[in-house]
């Protein structure tokens, strides 16, 4: 399989602060890769450099194919309230002729099960449905790579399961290459073909794990599967490596100090 995304020695610093410290990995065509790391470890910076929103301080990002799409965590801000659901999905397709645009948007909305909601405004839909609109918009764009930034972190648990299964289904049906950035270990194991585990800031690659689970997954049976449980524990242990207990003690000491200051003053 050919590589869809190649990231080589990618690093980024904001002033003195090093957010990413030299990441090298690849994403193969048709693969779903999850990037998991502790919160504030530079996952967002990684996503912004890959998507081209910021230029990295060093290293290379090369994408096979010209365009990628991003599904953001905050669907209500990412969708345009002045456009209908259909209009939102057509939004990135303005360069295409009208008829083709229409057809592609309608098709993508069918894929996510929202064919009937095309004429509604996004804000008339539930949170989960809004995120499905965002996914449809990304799919209609036919991206070489679909980037997702904590895509299901703002919906309730039930909806989250539904959306995870929806993602697995559409990416299988349409052979989409997906990179999901998440802080949720369970989610990364459930969704991924591979998991990239990052350490805390600066983000470095701790492990690149294959997920030994069948392509067909199920919220109940997969999550109780021995392989699932084992991998989840492994990722959890790896993530603790990135969070030295030293820091926690330091933080607690600082907290105590500031507390006693407030009391004495």
């Amino acid at each position, binding site marked *: 399989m050919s590589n869809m995304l190649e990231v080589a020695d990618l690093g980024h610093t904001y002033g003195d602060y090093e957010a990413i410290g030299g990441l090298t990995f690849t994403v193969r065509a048709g693969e779903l890769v999850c990037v998991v790391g502790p919160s504030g470890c530079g996952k967002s910076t990684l996503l*912004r450099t890959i998507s081209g929103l910021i230029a990295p301080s060093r290293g290379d990002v090369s994408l096979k194919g010209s*365009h990628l799409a991003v599904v953001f965590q*905050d669907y209500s801000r*990412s969708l*345009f309230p002045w456009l209908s659901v259909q209009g939102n999905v057509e939004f990135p397709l*303005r360069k295409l002729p009208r008829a083709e645009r229409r057809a592609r948007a309608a098709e993508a909305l069918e894929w996510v099960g929202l064919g009937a909601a095309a004429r509604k405004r996004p804000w008339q839909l539930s949170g989960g449905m809004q995120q499905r609109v965002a996914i449809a918009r990304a799919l209609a764009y036919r991206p070489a790579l679909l980037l997702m930034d904590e895509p299901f972190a703002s919906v309730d648990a039930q909806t989250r399961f539904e959306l995870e299964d929806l993602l697995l289904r559409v990416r299988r049906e349409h052979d989409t290459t997906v990179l999901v950035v998440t802080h949720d270990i369970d989610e990364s194991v459930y969704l991924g073909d591979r998991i990239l585990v990052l350490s805390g800031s600066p983000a470095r690659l701790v492990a690149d794990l294959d997920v030994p689970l069948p392509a067909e997954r199920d919220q109940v049976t997969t999550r109780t599967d021995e392989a699932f449980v084992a991998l989840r524990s492994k990722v959890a242990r790896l993530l603790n490596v990135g969070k030295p207990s030293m820091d926690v003690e330091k933080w607690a000491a600082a907290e105590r100090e500031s507390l006693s200051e407030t009391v004495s003053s």
Partner: protein
Amino acid sequence: MSRFFQRWTVFAGLVVVWQVLGTLAEDPFFPPPSDIVTAAWDWWVLEPRNVTEHILPSVTRLLSGWAIASVVGIALGMLLGRSDRAMEYAGPLLVFLRSIPPPALVPVFLLLFQAGTSMQLATIVFGVIWPVLLNTVDGARSVDVTKVDTSAVFRIPRHQWVLGVVLPAASPKIFAGLRVSLSLSLVLMVISELVGTDNGIGSQLMQAQREFDYTRMWAGIVLLGVLGYGLNTALLAVERRALAWQPRSRDEQHA
């Protein structure tokens, strides 16, 4: 319907009080509303010459001044609103210019353009551009980061970014500015017609006052009130249609 009556009771009540007091007092400065309305009807409606020579020119000035200010204000506002650097340079200048009372510039514009339509337009445009411009700047700045990122990731063309994202995102603020400007346009139209001209509603107001025809003077004021009310209502209707996409209330959002 009952809401309609509720809203207009105070207004109607005041007119009745004025009518009674005006009839009893027989003060030439304060004629009763019935006389004013009759005068307004005779002078402004039944006299086609007054419509073509005074009302139409006034309304045309008001609307074209407002339209010019709106187009320039929105275009400039979007430009400044999306460029921090431009705003850094232009900010203090805008705040200073906005602080000048527009009527104070009437003598300047009289010098530059002589009395007439250009001077009147200049007064209106200079006076009413600020609410549109500053509101547009504010609106254009408020496009949230996720929408900026979304547009950047999809690499939408520039015209779509400006007209399809920044303009609609700023439109609630822009309409707020347009409403303030429209009522200001009426004020400045009258002011610009008080000097050096013999047509327009403002000039008729002055003339009636000079000829001691106070009923006609009041009739002009009533006409201006009706005009302002009508224009504002029309703009509100346009705004309601243009901003129909806005989520109206919190509880409707997840219906």
